[in-house]
């Protein structure tokens, strides 16, 4: 074989190996085995709140943080360009200045191709358009950094949302989600499980050791004594307080709340020990049950093999089948006849499948019992291996600190509003009051006597108003829809196949992010230039250079 072909074969082999390892083995076997499989993020349209009540009663959302970061990056870029060009004075550019000039210059020439001379003469048009473009470009590209939408606040999932068990991270104070199966969409959080998670997260209790029922009984008694004490304390504390809440002073209310809190805590401790006791007593039963089912499965499999062997041998198989298949007597009762070995075979297989289902259910119950023994009020059943690895069987989730800025409809909508209001402002600047003739065509109304068909011009003006509002909506939703859909697509693909394939979507996102930023700026320019054109007699007269 010639060397080129050998190399081609090796490359193909390499690609297949890399594909199998990264798209098959790692995301589906190895990573979930380590407990760091891929979790499905919570997708919601509004930006998630990171800090409540941050400034003047407004919440700080993660999209706003992204915008601030984009601003910092842009200002940093401007600062370094300014410094590299020695305050915009250096004639012969060095490398940094060269890059800045290349970037800004290309964009300026492109815009001039669209806007003509207006870009230079209209005040602040070029800075407005360039700012919109650079802000959106920076924001859209920064959405693709690692850490965006994946690093955030670890907290108990909200009610109705799917969450995952957690585990403590390597560095103190950090935590991550524990995902031990691929394509696992999480467990839904109910009110009850949210309370359980809440008390655990607040540190009310930790992991209990595996103890025998007797030891737990001792602890239960101790907890009951403590609860009794707490109740007595609560009653003595509240005895001195007036009964109605309105009459109490602040201090008294605080005292009441504290005593109540202690009492409720003690009561919950008692409940937890009771739960542990129940589950500890159940564990040996479940273990025995599993052993019994295992024996039954072995027997059924043996007899099934026998039935298959004897399928050609006649009637002896059927009575033998009846004798050994004891748990599911109904199925063995049918199909005992000579000619019908097939139903006996099918019955035998059905038995094994039923038993295995039973076994799975019992193992699940055993896992739940073991989990409840160590973490009473747990919401998720984890195996002993999982628990030893440090998994916490409550339902948690992560709210990202940073999320792409244009995934927030607020940014898209208000940027669109800003653009269109600027466009109207430019129209008024260029045409003065005559600009509004575009919308409310008074001269056409005035000429109705001479030219009745001029009424159409008036209606066209009304349609222009609707079109302007439509432009605001379309600008906003084009940007929002593209970027939000891109973020959702990234999350979905990463959930399905965590490695390599999302690279394709990242590439698409880079392209889409830059195109949408460019389009927003281009449309603003085009609308502004259109608004600045003189409205009347545009076709007949020549365009005079204004100002």
């Amino acid at each position, binding site marked *: 074989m010639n060397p080129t072909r050998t190399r081609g074969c090796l490359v193909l082999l390499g690609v297949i190996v890399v594909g199998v390892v990264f798209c098959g083995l790692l995301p589906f076997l190895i990573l979930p085995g380590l407990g760091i499989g891929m979790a499905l993020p919570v997708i919601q349209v509004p930006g998630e709140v990171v800090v409540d009540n941050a400034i003047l009663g407004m919440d700080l959302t993660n999209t706003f943080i992204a915008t601030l970061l984009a601003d910092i990056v842009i200002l940093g870029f401007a600062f370094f360009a300014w410094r590299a060009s020695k305050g915009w004075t250096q004639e012969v550019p060095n490398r940094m200045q060269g890059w800045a000039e290349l970037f800004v210059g290309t964009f300026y020439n492109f815009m001039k191709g669209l806007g003509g001379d207006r870009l230079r003469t209209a005040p602040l048009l070029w800075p407005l358009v360039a700012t919109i473009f650079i802000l959106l470009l920076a924001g859209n590209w920064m959405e693709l950094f690692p850490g965006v939408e994946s690093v955030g606040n670890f907290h108990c999932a909200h009610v109705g949302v799917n969450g995952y068990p957690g585990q403590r991270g390597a560095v103190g104070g950090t935590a991550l989600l524990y995902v031990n199966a691929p394509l696992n969409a999480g467990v839904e959080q109910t009110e009850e499980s949210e309370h359980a998670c809440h008390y655990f997260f607040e540190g009310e209790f930790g992991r209990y050791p595996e103890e025998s029922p007797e030891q737990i009984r001792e602890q239960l008694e101790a907890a009951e004594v403590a609860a009794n004490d707490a109740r007595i304390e609560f009653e003595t504390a509240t005895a001195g307080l007036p009964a109605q809440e309105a009459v109490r002073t602040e201090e008294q209310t605080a005292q009441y709340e504290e005593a109540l809190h202690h009492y409720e805590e003690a009561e919950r401790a008692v409940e937890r020990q009771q739960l542990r006791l129940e589950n500890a007593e159940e564990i040996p039963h479940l273990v025995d049950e599993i052993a019994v089912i295992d024996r039954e499965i072995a027997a059924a499999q043996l007899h099934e093999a026998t039935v298959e062997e004897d399928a050609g041998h006649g009637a002896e198989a059927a009575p033998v089948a009846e004798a050994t298949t004891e748990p599911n007597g109904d199925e063995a009762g049918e199909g005992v006849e000579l000619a019908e070995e097939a139903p006996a075979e099918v019955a035998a297989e059905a038995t094994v499948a039923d038993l295995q289902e039973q076994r799975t259910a019992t193992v699940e119950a055993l896992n739940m019992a073991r989990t409840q023994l160590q973490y009473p009020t747990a919401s998720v059943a984890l195996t002993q291996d999982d628990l030893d690895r440090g998994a916490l069987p409550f339902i948690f989730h992560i709210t990202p600190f940073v999320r792409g800025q244009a995934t927030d409809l607020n940014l898209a909508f208000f940027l669109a509003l800003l653009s269109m209001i600027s466009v109207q402002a430019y129209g008024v600047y260029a045409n003065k009051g005559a600009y509004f003739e575009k919308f409310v065509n008074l001269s056409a109304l005035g000429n109705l006597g001479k030219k009745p068909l001029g009424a159409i011009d008036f209606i066209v003006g009304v349609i222009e108003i609707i079109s302007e509002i439509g432009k605001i909506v379309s600008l906003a939703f084009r940007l929002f*829809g593209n970027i939000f859909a891109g973020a959702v697509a990234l999350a979905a693909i990463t959930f399905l196949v965590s490695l390599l394939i999302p690279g394709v979507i990242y590439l698409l996102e880079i392209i889409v992010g830059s195109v949408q930023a460019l389009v927003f700026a281009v449309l603003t320019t085009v609308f502004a230039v259109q608004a600045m054109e003189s409205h009347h007699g545009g076709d007949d007269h020549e365009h005079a250079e204004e100002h």
Partner: protein
Amino acid sequence: MIEGSIETGLKAIGAGLAMVGAFGPGIGIGLLAQGAMNAIGRNPDAAGTIQTNMILAIVFTEAIAIYALVVALVILFVL
């Protein structure tokens, strides 16, 4: 038989139906590209201008598909 709530299922159906609206812009963008290809074929020197205007027109058309997508997302995540 049916696991999960009917509500979630109906929402999914609604979102799927909303995306049928992406059918039109798909055809529209194809027609645009066809026109652009024809124009470039006739006049290769003007390829740059034609390409720029094609991209602009495609963005407008795509916006309609994005409207459909936004409705689908609103059905799934807001309602």
